[in-house]
């Protein structure tokens, strides 16, 4: 959130922009348009704010209707700003400098997100809690502390004790968290939702603390909490009887855990990806237990066989979602028969399984309400099989056919004809797909939002022309499609104006002209990958700098771009957060200097193999206040002293650094210790 000064004068274009957003042009917004008329009228007549006349109640109602872009609405006038401040419920802090002020201003927030805010540590928390004259914590229901690695258990406990209504906490990816932090979390007695993914230090003891302290827990994710064992899960199942969602992925738990979990009467979603110690015995416990189970994920559980999965299925005919990716080699006949009974199945993902036309036919004829089908890397997927499955499942919205290399245009045409609602189609590495199949797709699937054509060598400029008919496309992946050129890209740029993500990785024929077209057509692009597009130059980069929404830009190994292009990007792309410049060897100090001064929102940067000097590196690292992840491998012009100085300057703020492993013993151990103590992770390349 950028701090914005409240403007006193009227700013009608801003209001207009906010009210004519595509999403807000719905039936309910008619009365807002009515307001605009009155507003424009009175502005002309009286030059005074009409909103002074409206009660706060009415203003709040207006704001409720326009929830798509409250930010620009706030800029309209004082009243809007005031009402918006009092009614705002969620806030995501990007910079710690403004944290205190923002919390005082938005005193009614219910959700506080500190996941991307650097320098959140115990001291900051104690200042926050002691200074605020307005008690901002009293309404907080949700705390997002994901990757807040600087926060220790003392600060965490203070924060949690200060929020009496707290219901949801996210501490995922705080790798250093252990039992003490879990103990601090257990102070939140009203907690209903907890995400502890990758809290590597949490053991059964910590889990027991939470299980006893937060007995109202409904949703708990323990993914990658590798220290947790059967004992902890057993206690959890005894204490937290309200659990509806449980994720125990990658834990070293055995079938005994499933015996305990089966006693959870309210469990609806159970995810156990990569639990390699769980076998069919465990799944048989689930057959009789968890009466409300709706979704199960046994992906990558190597010891699970079709018969185990069948026992789960036979116990739960209301199953809606089944994930069995990369755990079965093939589906047995009884399991296929069991699938016949699952009439409510919405989502089925069986990536990596050997299938046959017969199996796909069974799925197609029985699972009529299927919305998502994942057949990625399945062996034995043929045109015939695809035709049989899609002819039955007309409601399919997501179809993943990654690496189903034997399917051809016939299958694509059938998909297009059978599934008019298709929103996501993944065809990575389907080499035999050409413009013929994609023609039909462009004709029929007008709802398509995501299309993955990575590594489809059959895709050419004509194919892109056909695809461009899907004007709702949001994400398009064309990586490694070496046959597409600027012409094809221009078709996409002209028609797919809603595109936010575009992957052109190694599309070597793409040049500056295509990028120019892209910059004018797809101005909503937030993610753009141009790595290894070695024909592009600074001209193209200057065009790209016109994409004001751009946040992720990958420019890896483009030999021709220089500091001039980077400077344009740094100045114009204000939202730029992730930048990859690895192996861009022509960019020199002036380019990085521009980044240091203009790209103030930069979160991650990869400048390995770049020609940056000691001085500018230090400047960059100290000046970019949001920077949290830097990859600094093979900086030939940087000395060890320079690197040390740069690290010192960003210490406490940065969360991840990648350094050359040969420097491991040259860098002073004091810096490394400080980094470690501050929760910063150093990876050695």
């Amino acid at each position, binding site marked *: 959130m950028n701090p914005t000064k409240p403007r006193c004068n009227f700013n009608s274009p801003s209001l207009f922009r906010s009210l004519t957003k595509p999403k807000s042009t719905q039936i309910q917004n008619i009365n807002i348009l009515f307001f605009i008329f009155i507003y424009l009228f009175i502005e002309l007549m009286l030059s005074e704010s009409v909103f002074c006349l409206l009660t706060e109640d009415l203003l709040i109602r207006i704001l409720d209707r326009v929830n798509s872009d409250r930010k620009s609405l706030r800029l309209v006038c004082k009243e809007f700003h005031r009402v918006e401040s009092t009614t705002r419920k969620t806030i995501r802090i990007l910079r710690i400098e403004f944290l205190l002020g923002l919390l005082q201003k938005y005193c009614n927030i219910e959700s506080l997100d500190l996941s991307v805010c650097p320098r959140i540590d*115990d001291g900051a928390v*104690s200042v926050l809690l002691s200074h605020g004259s307005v008690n901002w914590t009293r309404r907080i229901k949700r705390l997002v502390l994901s990757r807040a690695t600087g926060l*220790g258990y*003392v600060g965490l*406990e*203070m924060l949690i*004790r200060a929020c009496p209504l707290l219901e949801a906490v996210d501490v995922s990816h705080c790798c250093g968290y252990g*039992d*003490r932090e879990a*103990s601090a979390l*257990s102070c939140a007695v009203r907690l209903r939702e907890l995400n502890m993914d990758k809290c590597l230090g949490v053991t*059964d*003891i*910590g889990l*027991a*603390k939470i299980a*006893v*302290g937060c007995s109202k827990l409904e949703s708990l994710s323990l993914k990658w909490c590798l220290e947790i064992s059967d*004992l*902890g899960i*057993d*206690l959890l199942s*005894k*204490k937290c009887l309200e659990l509806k969602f449980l994720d125990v992925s990658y834990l070293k738990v055995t079938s005994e855990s499933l015996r305990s979990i089966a006693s959870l009467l309210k469990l609806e979603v159970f995810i156990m990806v990569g639990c390699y110690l769980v076998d069919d015995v465990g799944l048989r416990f689930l057959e009789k237990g968890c009466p409300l189970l709706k979704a199960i994920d046994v992906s990558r559980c190597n010891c699970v066989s079709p018969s185990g999965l069948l026992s789960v299925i036979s116990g739960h005919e209301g199953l809606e979602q089944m994930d069995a990716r990369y755990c079965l080699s093939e589906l047995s006949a009884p399991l296929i028969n069991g699938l016949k009974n699952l009439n409510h199945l919405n989502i089925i993902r069986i990536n990596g399984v050997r299938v046959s036309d017969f199996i796909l036919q069974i799925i197609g004829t029985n699972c009529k309400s299927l919305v998502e089908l994942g057949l990625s890397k399945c062996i034995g997927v043929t045109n015939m099989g695809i035709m049989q499955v899609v002819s039955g499942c007309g409601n399919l919205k997501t179809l993943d056919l990654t690496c189903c290399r034997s399917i051809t245009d016939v299958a694509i045409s059938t998909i297009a004809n059978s599934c008019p609602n298709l929103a996501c189609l993944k065809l990575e590495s389907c080499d035999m797909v050409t413009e013929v199949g994609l023609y039909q797709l462009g004709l029929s699937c007008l709802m398509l939002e995501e299309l993955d054509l990575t590594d489809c060598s059959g895709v050419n400029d004509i194919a892109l022309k056909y695809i461009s008919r899907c004007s709702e496309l949001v994400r398009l992946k064309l990586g490694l499609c070496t046959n597409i050129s600027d012409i094809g890209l221009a078709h996409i740029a002209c028609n797919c104006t809603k595109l936010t993500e575009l992957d052109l990785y190694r599309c070597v024929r793409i040049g500056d002209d295509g990028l120019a077209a892209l910059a004018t057509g797809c101005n909503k692009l937030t993610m753009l990958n141009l790595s290894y597009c070695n024909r592009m130059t600074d001209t193209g980069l200057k065009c790209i700098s016109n994409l004001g929404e751009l946040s992720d830009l990958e420019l890896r190994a483009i030999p021709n771009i220089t500091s001039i292009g980077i400077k344009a990007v740094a100045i114009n792309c204000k939202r730029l957060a992730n930048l990859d410049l690895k192996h861009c060897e022509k960019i020199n100090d002036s380019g990085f200097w521009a980044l240091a001064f203009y790209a103030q929102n930069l979160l991650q940067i990869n400048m390995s193999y770049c020609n940056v000097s000691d001085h500018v590196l230090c400047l960059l690292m100290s000046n970019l206040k949001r920077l949290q992840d830097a990859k600094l491998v093979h900086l030939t012009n940087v000395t060890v002293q320079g690197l040390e100085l740069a690290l010192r300057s960003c210490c406490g703020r940065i969360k991840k650094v990648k350094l050359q492993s040969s420097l491991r013993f040259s860098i002073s151990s004091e810096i490394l210790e400080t980094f470690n103590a501050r929760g910063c992770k150093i990876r050695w390349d």
Partner: protein
Amino acid sequence: MNPTGSLCANNWARSSSLVPPGNGLQTNLSLDPSSFFGVGIETPFKEINQPSPTQCVIPGESKKDVKITDQETSKLQDWDPSAMLNNLSFLEEKIHQLQDVVHMIVNKKFQPFEQPRELVTQEQQLITADLTSIIVQLISTAGTSSGIQPQNNCENKLFDHSIQNDVPNKCEMEQNHNMEEHEHKDEEDMEEGENLPPGSYEILQLEKEEILAPHTHFCTICGKGFKRDANLRMHMRGHGDEYKTPAALAKPHKETGSEPKLIKRYSCPYGGCKRNKDHKKFQPLKTILCVKNHYKRTHCDKSYTCSRCHTKKFSVIADLKTHEKHCGKDKWLCSCGTTFSRKDKLFGHIALFQGHTPAIPLEENKGLAEPPDRCDAKENSTMVGSMNFCFGSNPSSENGIDNMMDVKGNIDDPINYFSSLNFEGCNFGAFNEFSQPPFEDSDSSFSFLMSGSFNYAPKSGGESCSDNL
């Protein structure tokens, strides 16, 4: 010669003389034959390896035994005599075959060089194959006609092993027999199962001095005392060659072992104790060692203190040693102050009680700030109040444990101990919710409660507390 049959007979005789009618033997026999095999199948091998010296082999007796078992089984199950006869004749035939085979083996042994060596080995293989097939048939037939002891003179070990399956409860009796000879540490618990009628044993009562004497075996020459007779005998060797003979070194009482002796039981000299013979519900002690341990544990001061925790005290040095083995390993700590040697025990405890959580040991100092709850308490309450609060919130702190241990050491009566704590108003977590003392391993604390309740009984007036048992 059938050693197993005679063994069975021996046991039979002994147990029938010891155990009054109506005891467990008949119930054992009334089991159906299939379960006989299920029960006996694992144990016999063990016994063959350690035959007891009392096994004297009397063929006639073994025959009698067979008759008895036959009668017993015929009473208890549906028995078809003609089928039995068939089986017997089949067995006879098989045994004859077996005899022939063995004869062949014996003959071959005397003329090994007349034939080429390969031929000999080949024949031997054939014979052994024959032998095993016959044995297998024999076993299966024996299985169908249970209760029959096939009479044969085969010296084959394997054969013996298999036949032992037919001896159903012999092993159990053997075990009982061994138990009496054996020294038991937990004899007091074991005794609960023993239901000897009052008149069937001789009661001995040692005096207090005798019990507390450190040594019971004294050298007649130099006067040195020993705890064990075996050690004394080893010592005696030093006094001359006459003590080195096998006869002198052998266990003396074994020579008189064959004659039936009256069972000895012991009484505790402490008046009012349940182990005292004048007590209404007198329960005798089995061995002298039992008496010693019981007397020390129950009626003596606990003079041995653990060198690690300096809190736990014991009157029997073996108990101290057992404790010291585990002391300090109880790293699993509950918020109520109870420690556990094993994580699963702690988790079982937490699952059982509401509001208990595992305590996280304080490894590092909380240098940064005081916990907020403590600050609140100081702000809101007087000094005393905050003290109490801290106690309540940190029951795991060493202070708390020390205090509790002191209380335990001073006050003998467990009931008083509990109530006095509560009276003082120190709120040690959820102390009232459960009856376990919060300073011990759950395993040992359980046994502590059991033994403790009857250990404490006499001091607070045996009659009133005897109900605890």
